[in-house]
């Protein structure tokens, strides 16, 4: 059972319950923001085969997306959530999870909308300055990748060193490459939990890149991530009459 407990520092931390007697430790508050679905990729967790997960709305959306990507073929998942009224809901089927997500589909947060609005108001050069200043601080810790439930590749592109596709050193140009590549690999798959931006140790709003990608994809192709179990990934499909205005 993956849920939250209270740490010695009083924050909610992810916890892993293996014995029924430990269930007393579980808590659920507004601060339980971690996207626990990321742990479902961990071999130590998957070994259990029967896994329960206490999910907030972003995690539920992540589960729908991961199921649409066929990621849970070998485990039996039991999903619980706590709704706005504080009631604990147990989902009988995955279709029930899908229905709940569609009924409670989360909007972009005020902060995201505000920051995106600010960035869109800047000129191209100002935006470049903003992002290169941000990426100058990046230390390539890969916490954004580690915490993302959609980043589950056993070998990440960064780890390819024949040739070294993305520079390992934490210099601005290499950092730019890394974040651009990551945003593209997640475009249309990111479920907007905002964890990557929240946990970045140097405070870069990394989540904005994929939030913007999702907005664009919805505008251009009408697709949404984490919405349906069947899934509709924009970059896997095409329409012969896709519109664009920039190809000569």
């Amino acid at each position, binding site marked *: 059972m993956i849920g939250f407990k209270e740490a010695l520092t009083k924050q909610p931390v992810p916890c892993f319950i293996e014995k029924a007697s430990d269930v007393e430790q579980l808590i659920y508050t507004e601060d339980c923001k971690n996207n626990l679905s990321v742990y479902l990729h961990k071999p130590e967790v998957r070994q259990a085969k029967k896994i329960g997960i206490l999910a907030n709305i972003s995690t539920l959306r992540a589960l729908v997306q991961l199921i649409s990507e066929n990621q849970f073929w070998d485990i039996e998942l039991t999903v619980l959530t706590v709704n706005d009224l504080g009631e604990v809901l147990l989902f009988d089927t995955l279709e029930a999870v899908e229905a709940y997500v569609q009924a409670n589909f989360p909007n972009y947060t005020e902060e995201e909308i505000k920051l995106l609005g600010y960035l869109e108001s800047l000129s191209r050069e100002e935006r*470049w300055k903003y992002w290169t200043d941000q990426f100058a601080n990046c230390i390539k810790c890969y916490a954004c990748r580690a915490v993302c439930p959609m980043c589950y590749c056993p070998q990440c592109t960064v780890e390819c060193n024949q040739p070294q596709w993305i520079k390992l050193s934490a*210099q*601005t140009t290499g950092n730019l490459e890394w974040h651009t590549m990551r945003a593209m690999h997640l475009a249309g798959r990111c479920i907007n939990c905002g964890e990557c931006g929240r946990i970045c140790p140097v405070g870069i709003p990394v989540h904005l890149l994929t939030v913007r990608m999702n907005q*664009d994809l919805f505008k251009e192709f009408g697709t949404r991530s984490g919405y349906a179990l069947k899934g509709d990934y924009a970059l896997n499909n095409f329409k*012969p009459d896709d519109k664009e205005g920039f190809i000569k």
Partner: protein
Amino acid sequence: MQSMSDFEPKIVAFVCNWCTYAGADLAGTSRTQYAPSVRIVRFPCTGRIDFMLLMKAFENGADGIIVSGCHPNDCHYTSGNFHARRRWIVFRSLLDFIGFDTDRITFSWVSAAEGKKWATLVNEVTEHIQAKGPFTDLDKLDFIQLKEQYDEAITK
């Protein structure tokens, strides 16, 4: 600092083998004169073009990029160019969001019979990039020494 008329832009062209490359070949065999600024990189299909290659071309000294392939419905591999089109729409939007100058990248459909179109395209792009000047956005981005950080802090 080179004057605008001296500046010879380096244009890297990512093209598909069956259409645009053949079109460029036709321009050559027809002895069409066009700007010598382009360096052509041949791919089996535009669908194979990894978006990171565009960024890496700029990092390695390109001033402008052309990405060109078969017209929709004419792809040698049926649907490669359709996937590429979607990818370009998304990537272009991302680049614009991070402030990258997407004006330096030109996308086009050039078929094997369009030798003239290829020559015109290269000429137009060369002129366009010449007017814009060399690509310097990625220069001086990488700080290595504390002194440079400090100097930068003083000039802010």
